[in-house]
């Protein structure tokens, strides 16, 4: 009990200094955790993507659509067990601030390809039976307080007019990483309206999603699909769902790299601050360390005292930081809405936060501990704290 007692009392000898150091570590650890979570959220779509799904889009650009008839041809490609298609709707719910993704999808095929969207059989049946029906993810429904049976009006931006959907189901995610912040409705409902108003834009799909029999055949199937439409008016580019999602991430890669760099810089800064604090602390106690050594305690004991104190302070700050990361991440997620759909503090981030705190403690103590362990007793006894 002697050493823990000594370490504890030493750590809180200068209460204000220790408290400020802990606050600094807490801020750094929270910032590190939030920045890591932002980066994780950016990759959430890619990470939660399935290895048995391919996405086919126009080879020119995602903004160009493809004829709906491609669906039949894709279905005939060897290795494809299911095909669905979707269009980005881009509607506004009440105000532009309420952004969330909406897709017109080919039900029920789309639901079969995305089994991670979990609906009750009653909800699924009700959705499929209502052409103006829609389903929403749990996160989205909770955010706006939607209930089954509610009417959801969206103001179209790509497809002008006010579109009203009947909420027939609220789906949960099969996995914690499943995105439940989107809304899905019948492609036919949209296509019929387009056919009436803009016939030339009808029967077009933004993307086709294929289900594979064998994920190892993804490359061959992708090639086969693209070959099918080579030299056509609308050539295709087929890739795995993960690659498709990473394509979006790549657009903001520089920002992500900057965020990651900042998250590490924050840790380096607090490391320097803590190292300065520990150096100052050790310097003030040289006479005490010399006394310990004169009494027969070794240099290792002195070093251990400094390491234990530094690690204790860093770990305390780290644990408080980790505890605060959750409410702050939730608050951040609420404020950014559906822009970062997979905003979730992962176990990996928590481990990295604790690891960073411990590293700060070790690095901060290393030089002072080394110096104090090697201090000559005679010189140490002359030191003035």
């Amino acid at each position, binding site marked *: 009990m*002697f050493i823990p*007692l*000594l370490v504890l*009392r*030493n750590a809180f*000898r200068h209460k204000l200094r220790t408290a400020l150091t802990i606050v600094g570590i807490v801020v750094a650890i929270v910032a590190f955790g939030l920045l890591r979570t932002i980066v994780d959220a950016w990759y959430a779509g890619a990470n939660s993507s399935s290895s048995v799904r391919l996405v086919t889009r126009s080879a020119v650009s995602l903004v160009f659509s493809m004829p709906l008839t491609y669906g039949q041809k894709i279905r005939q490609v060897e290795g494809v067990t299911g095909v669905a298609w979707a269009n980005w709707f881009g509607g506004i719910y009440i105000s532009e601030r309420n952004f969330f993704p909406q897709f017109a999808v080919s039900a029920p095929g789309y639901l079969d390809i995305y089994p991670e969207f979990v609906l009750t059989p009653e909800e699924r049946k009700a959705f499929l039976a209502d052409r103006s029906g829609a389903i929403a993810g749990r996160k989205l429904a909770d955010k706006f307080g939607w209930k089954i049976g509610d009417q959801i009006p969206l103001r179209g931006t790509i497809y002008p007019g006010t579109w009203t959907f009947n909420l027939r189901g609220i789906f949960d995610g099969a996995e914690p990483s499943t995105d439940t912040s989107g809304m899905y409705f019948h492609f036919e409902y949209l296509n019929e309206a387009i056919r009436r108003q803009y016939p030339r834009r009808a029967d077009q799909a933004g993307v086709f999603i294929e289900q594979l029999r064998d994920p190892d055949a993804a490359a061959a199937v992708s090639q086969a699909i693209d070959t099918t439409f080579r030299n056509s008016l609308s050539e295709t580019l087929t890739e795995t769902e993960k690659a498709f999602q990473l394509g979006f991430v790549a657009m903001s890669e520089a920002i992500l790299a900057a965020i990651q760099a900042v998250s590490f810089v924050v840790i380096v800064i607090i490391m320097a601050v803590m190292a300065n604090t520990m150096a100052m602390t050790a310097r003030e106690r040289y*006479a*005490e360390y010399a*006394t*310990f*050594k*004169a*009494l*027969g*305690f*070794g*240099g290792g004991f002195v070093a251990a005292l400094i390491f234990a104190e530094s690690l204790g302070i860093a770990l305390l700050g780290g644990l408080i930081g980790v505890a605060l990361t959750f409410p702050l991440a939730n608050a951040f997620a609420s404020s950014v809405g559906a822009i970062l759909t997979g905003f979730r503090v992962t176990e990996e981030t928590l481990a990295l936060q604790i690891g960073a705190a411990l590293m700060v403690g070790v690095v901060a103590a290393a030089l002072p501990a080394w110096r104090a362990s090697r201090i*000559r*007793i*005679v010189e140490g*006894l002359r030191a003035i704290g």
Partner: protein
Amino acid sequence: MSALRDGPVGEAPSGESPNEPLVATVGLTKHYVRGGQMIPVLVDINLRVPEGDYVALMGPSGSGKSTLLNLIAGIDKPSAGQIRVAGVDIARLSEGDLAAWRAANVGFIFQFYNLIPVLTAFQNIELPLQLTSLSRSERRERVATALELVGLADRATHRPNELSGGQQQRVAIARALITDPTLVVADEPTGDLDRTTGGEILGLLERLNRELGKTIVMVTHDPKAAERARRMVHLEKGVLVD
């Protein structure tokens, strides 16, 4: 007033003998190198301190008395010569062995007490016992006895900043004695105290020597303090003088 007996200053021990003194230095030399220049601090010191002696090392500032004390206590290394304490040439010990030797054989009393401020008087006195194999109850018993001896039984739970200078030095003396060391070294033990309190501390050291038979080597520049020792040794410019 204690009797003063000026000892055989500068007398070299005559090699191994059945009555070898507790402390014997032979040709002890210490110098520092500053800016490429060798600065002698102690030159060919031959000193004998028999067991049970109480020696006051005196001399002006810079005479090397504290350096000599540090060498005898094993917290500094000589440039040349031997330091035999209870038959062990401590100049030849490694850092680790020297630390263990100090823990078992030397009690330190410093001018500024050098107590650990975050520990109570009891815990400060107990500190050297952490390096022993004594049980917790044995340690407590010893510390209680030491506190009684220095008259601070009622201050066991006080921290150094809650004690007067004299009381802090008493705690330091108790800490120096707690392991029942072979040798007690005191570097200006009254240097930071007023005359009355200093007198009390010197009285306590005198008791330790006379009643408990402790061998004490004390550095002081105060002739009044030195008079309380059994004998005085004078140093001037690093050389023992009569």
